[in-house]
């Protein structure tokens, strides 16, 4: 008749503890430490100090990806989206503060080295190419759960809320249209000033560092955004104004997927955690069950009503 004892609570809590985290990486997740860079990682370097805001890259992007331009803010006259959206995977925005500092910024998918969108996508609709590292979307696998929108730290993937056959829209580095055939992506090819250039990650990182070394103090904190942010990306930014002004979040060097699976990868490695919890549960249940059955048979033999499960 006694209530639950303290010992039971500890056992109960221990059971929960054994199940700690459990976000289901049945195989172990990426091991930690610096992210792995794919062997032929392609990259873009956007130097905001060079960009003149001509938006040639925007129309090139829509044309290459067969996206109807969003003319919403311009009364249908020309492409003028308010932000990245399901018809815009690349946008040039202007940061302008009253004190006089200003900068253009090009926003698009960062092609993260450890992409959160890929880590969360349940059926591998989003995948990171092993060789080039581009993150692409496959409509044949996507269930439209929009977990990618929840998890992307840059708020990049967009969903076609108004379509019967909705897609996830985000920059895919023109993989299908151009990269596959060895051509440059639409936007870098269109940029007249060279504000955004295409190359390998290794080369562009070196290029960015050279620019910083050549003009000390010109660039914000003498840093390349994307080198380490959120585990590193394949799109780099150089800017005179603080990155946060350009809408680039300040992220730690640990990627979201690494953070999210740190504990679970241990628990779910070889399914050890679930196996232990099951063994504990079954051991105890089986013992109590046998006892229960013995009592039941006695009880029913005495002519009582059949026991209810």
């Amino acid at each position, binding site marked *: 008749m006694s209530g*639950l004892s303290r010992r039971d*609570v500890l*056992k*109960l809590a221990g*059971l*929960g503890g054994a*199940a*700690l*985290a*459990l*976000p*289901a990486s*049945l*195989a172990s997740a990426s091991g930690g430490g610096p992210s792995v860079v794919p062997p032929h990682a392609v990259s873009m370097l956007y130097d905001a100090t060079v960009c003149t805001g001509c938006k040639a890259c925007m129309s090139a992007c829509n044309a290459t990806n067969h996206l109807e331009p969003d003319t919403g803010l311009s009364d249908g006259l020309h492409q003028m989206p308010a932000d990245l*959206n399901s018809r815009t995977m690349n946008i040039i925005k202007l940061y302008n503060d009253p004190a006089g500092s200003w900068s253009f910024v090009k926003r698009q998918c960062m092609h993260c080295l450890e992409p959160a969108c*890929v*880590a*969360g*996508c*349940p*059926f*591998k609709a989003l995948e990171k190419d092993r060789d080039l590292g581009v993150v692409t979307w496959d409509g*044949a*696998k*996507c*269930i*439209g*759960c*929009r*977990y990618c*929108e*929840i998890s992307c*730290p840059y*708020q990049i993937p967009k*969903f*076609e*809320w*108004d379509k*019967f*056959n*909705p897609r996830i829209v985000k920059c895919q580095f023109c993989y299908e249209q151009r990269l596959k055939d060895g051509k440059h992506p639409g936007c870098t090819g269109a940029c007249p000033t060279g504000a955004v250039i295409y190359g390998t990650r290794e080369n562009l990182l070196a290029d960015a560092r050279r620019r910083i070394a050549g003009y000390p103090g010109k660039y914000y904190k003498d840093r390349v955004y994307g080198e380490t942010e959120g585990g590193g990306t394949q799109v780099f930014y150089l800017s005179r104004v603080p990155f946060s002004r350009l*809408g680039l979040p300040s*992220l730690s060097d640990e990627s979201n*997927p690494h*953070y999210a699976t740190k*504990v679970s990868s241990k628990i779910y490695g070889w399914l050890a955690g*679930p196996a232990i*919890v*099951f063994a504990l*549960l*079954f051991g*105890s*249940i*089986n013992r*109590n*069950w046998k006892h229960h059955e013995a*009592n039941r048979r006695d009880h029913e033999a005495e002519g009582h*009503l059949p026991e*209810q*499960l």
Partner: protein
Amino acid sequence: MSDSVWQRAIPVYEDRSVKKTFIFFTILAIAGTILAVLRMASPLGRYSAMNDFYAWGVWKTFNVMTLTAIGSGGLAVGVAAWAFDRQKLHVVMRTALVTSFLFYTTGMLALMVDVGRPWNLWHILLPWHWNMHSALLEVAVCMPTYAFLFLAFENVPLVLERYSYLGSDATRARIAGLEPVIRKIYPVMIAFAYLLPIMHQSSLGALMLLAGPKVHPLWQTQALPLLYVMAAGIAGFAFVIGTLLVCCLRYSRPLSTDVLGELGSLMSWLTFAWLAFRFVDIAVRGKFGLLLALDKYTAYFVLENILLLVPAIMLRSKQLRETPRILFMAAVSAGVGACLYRLVPALIAFIPARKANYFPSVAELTMTLGFIAAAIVGFKLAIRYFAVLPGPIADWQFAFKPATPKQPKS
């Protein structure tokens, strides 16, 4: 077997008339279902206010992530009764199992309505298409398996029982043949029936881990999965207590303060454990300072903890937990607190990278409430046709039909 006033699950024989509340819930359930069908045949944006910044609305964050917590009674009471041998709880298992089954089912309906490309869901059948790193995959695979295999199995005996009384002799013989099989596999099946929800209830918390800095730091923690599964246990106990109290009062059944007190006591210990984990976690991460912001997050944080702490303390008193009115209020408070804790990191303390707003549309809310109403209607029917609610053995009638009107109660 027990000297409690609850000795057996007994169908509700009386109260056949259709009541106004029942009609209300039925209409709401039908409205929700019609809207759900319309929604499935339309673009997602037409019936919901979700957007690219709040890409998960109330269907996922409330119907799935929150309401399956109150559907965790089958887990909470089951683990207590079978793994920790709390014998006296067996009599309320069916109440827990039926509510769990119904709330999981409605959660899964909401999930179906929520996905934008449901025609690709069949990938779930092909394990080589699974992304093993994804918490959402774990939920998508584990939750239906639990609900439609293990939880359904746990609910089979009460269905068989009805037909072994009402069915023909042949049916009866077949059911009698099934019984030993069920009893043979029962321990393994219920061990799985507790393992799976422990896994997916914690994975629901793990979903928000991947959102990283978008979840307010008071809630964003590696302990999210653990706190989520424990909150499910608390909400599960709370909902079973609440359901028992409401139904027994409504159908004028006597209350077993003994069993109810036990449930209250377990809930209270679990809540203390939860609070301890939560506060230690925040202390270790050094985030208590954030409470000084005195913003809406501070308010939600304080609210969650008070809703949970107060009943936990009150229910340590045997006298209080055996007072139905107090127990009821405590269960409501703890249930709301635990549910709030599950909702907040997914919706309220979820801060997208750009300023944005989300408030569910009328259609969205109607579906959300409609699914809940469907569960209530289902429960009302279940307790009438099956032996679910506990009662004194004297009330047991072999025929499930009210052949003889029950003698009037004093």
